[in-house]
C-alpha cells in the first residue's frame, strides 16, 4: 500500500510536467489549427538552453525563464518563417503535419552535433526530501507542482477573463468571423505562438529537471506524452489537456507500482486507445471539434 501512495505522489509530479506541455500543445492546435510535431524538439532545445545557462553558473530557475523565452521566440519565428507561408499557399492539414515532422527531424539532426548524443544533467536541482503520509517528494518537485497549478490557473484566467483570451477563443471558433468582427486574428495567432512557445519551453526545462538526466533523444518522448494527454482530453481543449495529463501522469506511475514497470507507458496508452474507441472526440471535446477548428 505504501508503494501505491508513493506512486500517487510521483504521479502528481508527472501530471504537472505533462499538463504544462499538453496545454501548450493543445492551445497551439486549438487556436492556430496547426498540429506542430516539432513541439517535442522545441521542448528539448529549450531544456538545452537552460542547461547551458545553468552550466555557466546561473540558477536553474533563471535558466527556466531563459528556456521559456527561447521557446516563445523560436516558436513565433517557426510559425512566421516556416508554417505561415505554407498555410498561405493553402497547404492541407496533412501537408502541414508533414512539414512540422520535417522541421522536427531537421531540428533533431541539427542539434545532435551541437549538443552531442550523451545525457546531461542540471546542477543542484533536487532540493531536500519531504515525506508526508507515504508520499515522498523533493522540494523542487513540490515547486514544480505549484508552478503547474499557477500556470493552469493563469491559462484559465487568460482564456476566460482577458480580451486576448476572448479573442483567442473567437479565433479558434471561427477565424473568418472573428476577423470580420474586427479581431486582429494575425496578431492573436502571433500571441498564441509566443504564449504556447513559452509554455513549451518551460515544459521542456521542467521535464528535463524531472528526468534528472536528459539527452537529445528525449524530445520525441516529450512530444508523445504531450500529444497523448492532449488527444485524451480532446484535441484543442485546454481543460481537456489538463484532465488528460492527470490521467496519464497518475496511471503511468500507479501501473509501474502495480505491474511490470517496463509496460507503464503501455498501460497509459492502452487507456488512451480505449477512450478513443468509446469517445473518439476525447474526454471534453464535442464531436467534430477537430474540423470546427478550421
Amino acid at each position: 500500500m505504501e508503494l501505491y501512495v508513493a506512486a500517487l505522489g510521483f504521479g502528481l509530479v508527472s501530471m504537472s510536467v505533462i499538463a504544462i506541455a499538453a496545454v501548450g500543445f493543445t492551445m497551439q492546435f486549438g487556436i492556430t489549427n496547426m498540429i506542430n510535431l516539432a513541439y517535442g524538439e522545441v521542448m528539448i532545445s529549450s531544456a538545452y538552453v537552460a542547461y547551458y545557462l545553468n552550466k555557466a553558473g546561473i540558477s536553474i530557475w533563471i535558466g527556466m525563464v531563459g528556456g521559456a523565452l527561447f521557446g516563445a521566440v523560436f516558436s513565433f519565428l517557426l510559425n512566421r518563417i516556416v508554417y505561415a507561408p505554407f498555410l498561405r499557399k493553402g497547404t492541407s492539414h496533412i501537408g502541414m503535419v508533414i512539414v512540422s515532422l520535417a522541421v522536427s527531424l531537421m531540428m533533431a539532426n541539427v542539434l545532435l552535433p551541437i549538443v552531442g548524443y550523451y545525457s546531461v544533467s542540471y546542477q543542484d536541482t533536487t532540493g531536500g526530501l519531504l515525506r508526508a503520509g507515504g508520499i515522498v517528494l523533493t522540494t523542487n518537485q513540490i515547486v514544480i507542482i505549484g508552478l503547474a497549478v499557477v500556470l493552469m490557473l493563469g491559462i484559465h484566467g487568460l482564456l476566460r477573463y482577458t480580451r486576448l483570451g476572448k479573442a483567442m477563443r473567437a479565433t479558434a471558433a471561427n477565424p473568418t468571423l472573428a476577423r470580420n468582427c474586427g479581431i486582429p486574428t494575425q496578431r492573436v495567432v502571433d500571441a498564441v505562438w509566443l504564449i504556447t512557445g513559452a509554455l513549451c519551453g518551460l515544459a521542456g526545462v521542467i521535464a528535463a529537471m524531472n528526468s534528472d538526466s536528459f539527452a537529445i533523444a528525449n524530445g520525441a518522448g516529450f512530444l508523445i506524452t504531450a500529444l497523448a494527454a492532449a488527444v485524451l482530453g480532446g484535441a484543442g481543449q485546454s481543460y481537456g489537456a489538463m484532465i488528460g495529463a492527470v490521467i496519464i501522469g497518475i496511471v503511468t506511475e500507479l501501473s509501474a507500482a502495480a505491474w511490470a514497470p517496463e509496460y507503464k507507458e503501455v498501460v497509459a496508452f492502452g487507456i488512451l486507445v480505449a477512450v478513443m474507441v468509446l469517445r473518439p472526440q476525447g474526454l471534453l471535446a464535442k464531436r467534430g471539434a477537430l474540423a470546427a477548428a478550421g
Partner: protein
Amino acid sequence: MKFQTAASRRWIAIRAIPVAGLLLLAACGASNTPTGGGLGSGDLLVGVIAPFTGADAGLGPAYYAACLAAAPSINSNGGVGGRQIKCQQFDTRGEPADAVPAANQMIASNSNLMAVVGCTSDEAATVAPIIDRAHIPMFCMTGQSEFNKTNLKYFHRLVPADVYDAFAMVGSALYGPNHAPYKNAALVFGDDIGSQAFVDPATKAFTKLGGKIAINQPIKLGASSYRTEVAAMLKSNPDVILTEALGSAGTYLKEVKTQNGGKMIPFIGTSATIDPTWFQQVRDAIGIDDLLKYYAGVDLGYTFTGTAYSEFLTNLNAAASTFADAPKYKQRGSTLHLYDGIIMTALAMVATNSSDRTVYNPKIIEIANGTNGATVVNTYKDGVAALKAGKSIRFVGAGGENNFDQYNNSQSGYILVAYDKDGNEVTAGKLTPDQTAKLIAAGG
C-alpha cells in the same frame, strides 16, 4: 493482327538505347565489385552499423572511433594494395525495424565494403544474417547467446558472450575487493534485448552461490522518470544493484540517491558501462564522489600498453579532427577490439592478395589465432612487411590476443574495475581461476 512497321522498329531501337546504357553502367559498376584475384582499386569502405541516435546512441560513436583510428594506421602504410580505407556510419537507432533497412541500404549502395563493424545486441540478430548473405566480414559487439554457436561464416565476435559478463558481475558482488560479499541484489536492466541477456545468467549464478535476488526490475529505457521503480527497488532493501541501462543510468541512479536520502547503494555495471558517455552521464547525475565510491564494473583484461596500443592511441587522438569525441574512447574495450578487427581484415586481404571477400574472410581467423611458427605482429605496417617477406603472421592488437573458436567467437578473461576521477579505468581486482570456475558452474 499487328504488323511491325519501320516506325515501330525504330521505337524499339530507341527504347533499347537506355536498356543498353543500363547494362553498360551495370558492367562498369561490376568492375568495382570484388572478384577473384588482386586487390583492385578505389577506396574501401568500413561500414559502422550501430545506434547513433535513440536510447543507445552512445554505442555507435565508440565503434566509429575505432574505424577512424584504424583507417590511418592502414592508409599511411600503403593502404590495402594502395586502396584507402574510409569509414561510414549507418544508423540503426538501436531498433531492429530501423536496422534492417539500414543494413540493406549499406550493402546495396556500397560494393566496396571490406568489413562491417558494430552490430550491437540491439540489432545483431536481424542484421548479421543479412550481412552474412552478402558475404561481408563483420565484427559484432553483441554478447547474445544465439551467437555462441553461430553458423554465420562472416560473423566474428571479439568479446565474450553476455553470460560471462553476467558471471563477472556476480563475481564482483560476491568476491570483489573492499567489501563484504553482497547477498541481496537488485537487477536493474534496460528492457532492450541486449540488457535483458544478462538477467538469467546473473540470477542463476548469484542464487546458486548463496545470494538472493531482491528484485528483478526491467526498466523502460528513455522513460522520463523512474520514481516509482526506484521506490519499489528500495523497498526490497538490496545491498547492491547489478545494472546495465544505457542512456537511462543517470536518471535512475539520481533517483536512487534522492529517495535514499542522498546516499547511494553500491552498483555494479557490465563492461558496457566502461564508457566515457556512461561515465559523464552518471557523474553529472550523482556526482563524482559517489560514482568513485559506489561504482564497480567488469571488463576484459586490457593492458592499455604496448606497441599496438600506442599506435591505436596516436591515431585515435589524431581522429579528433574528424570526430572530436574520438579520444574519449581510449579505454573503451569495443573500440580497441573493432580497431583490431579492421586491421586484421586488411591484413587478410594483403595475405590473400584478394579483395574477394569469400577469399580473404577465412584468413582473418588464421591471422588472429596464428599458426605454428607464425610471426607475432602488432601493427598493420609490421604485418604487411612480414607477409611480403613470405612469413605467416599472428596479429596481436590493441585489445590483446584473440583466440577464435570454430564459431568465430574469441574469448578472454575478465577483471574487476573502477573509474578514477578523470573517467579512466583502473583495475580493482581479479577473479581467481577457482572463483571463475565456481561462477561458470553455478550459472550453467
